[in-house]
């Protein structure tokens, strides 16, 4: 099983990059959704 560590590292780091990238999208989406709800609730009161 020569180079098993390298193969394991390549797949683990690669999927780690995708996971972190997806996490940043999900985090930004959740933050924006909360902001959007806050703004929508504020608008009728402003009028």
């Amino acid at each position, binding site marked *: 099983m020569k*180079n098993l560590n*390298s*193969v394991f590292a*390549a797949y683990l*780091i*690669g999927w780690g*990059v*995708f996971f972190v990238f997806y996490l940043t999208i999900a985090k930004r989406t959740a933050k*924006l959704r909360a902001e959007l709800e806050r703004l929508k609730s504020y608008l009728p009161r402003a009028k």
Partner: protein
Amino acid sequence: MTKRIILGGAAILLVIASAYAAFFIAPEERTMGLIQRIFYFHVSSAWAGFTAFFLCFIGNLLYVWKRDQKYDWLAVSGAEVGLAFTTVVLITGPIWAHPVWGIWWTWDARLTSTFVLWLLYVSYLLLRSLVDEPDRRALLSSLFGIFAFLDVPLVFGAIRWWRTQHPQPVIMGGQGSGLDPTMKSVFFFSALAMHVFMLFLVAERYALEKMQTETDFLVREVEA
């Protein structure tokens, strides 16, 4: 939302199946052995990255032509996702190269043009972060994005046009190149899985950009 969940579920199932195929169905390569199994992840990520940059390019062209914000959303989504895939290519490549070449990196045409591609799309995203006015940001980044895409055919052709340390193409490489039929099937399945996963990420990123525009609009409404 439901479509994105279905796409996400399909992407997860496909990438799990493609990893299984890469490790348990594809035969072991005679010269490199186990390390060659990185090929299925490395090359399919590169192809999916190219497609994401192509989506960015199409978005850029359509924005310049029609000046509709939805094309700018597509462009920035393609750029960010393509950058994530190219980052994976730039990480998995040296991990594969080290045991095979004895070095992590060399400045040959393929590796250098790929690194330049990565830098170009980092610059594209940096440029967007520097311009506040939405229409100006979309136009400037579209023009830069069209220029940045010129590097994609250069990366693709680098191993065909110049002598490189990077291996010559085994897919679409012309006479003398080729892959074992099982390896080829596993590779195309991996490429399909990575493309579905890439489309899922683009859809998620597009929805985020759309929501950002709605939020900006509401902020202006509230402030007015």
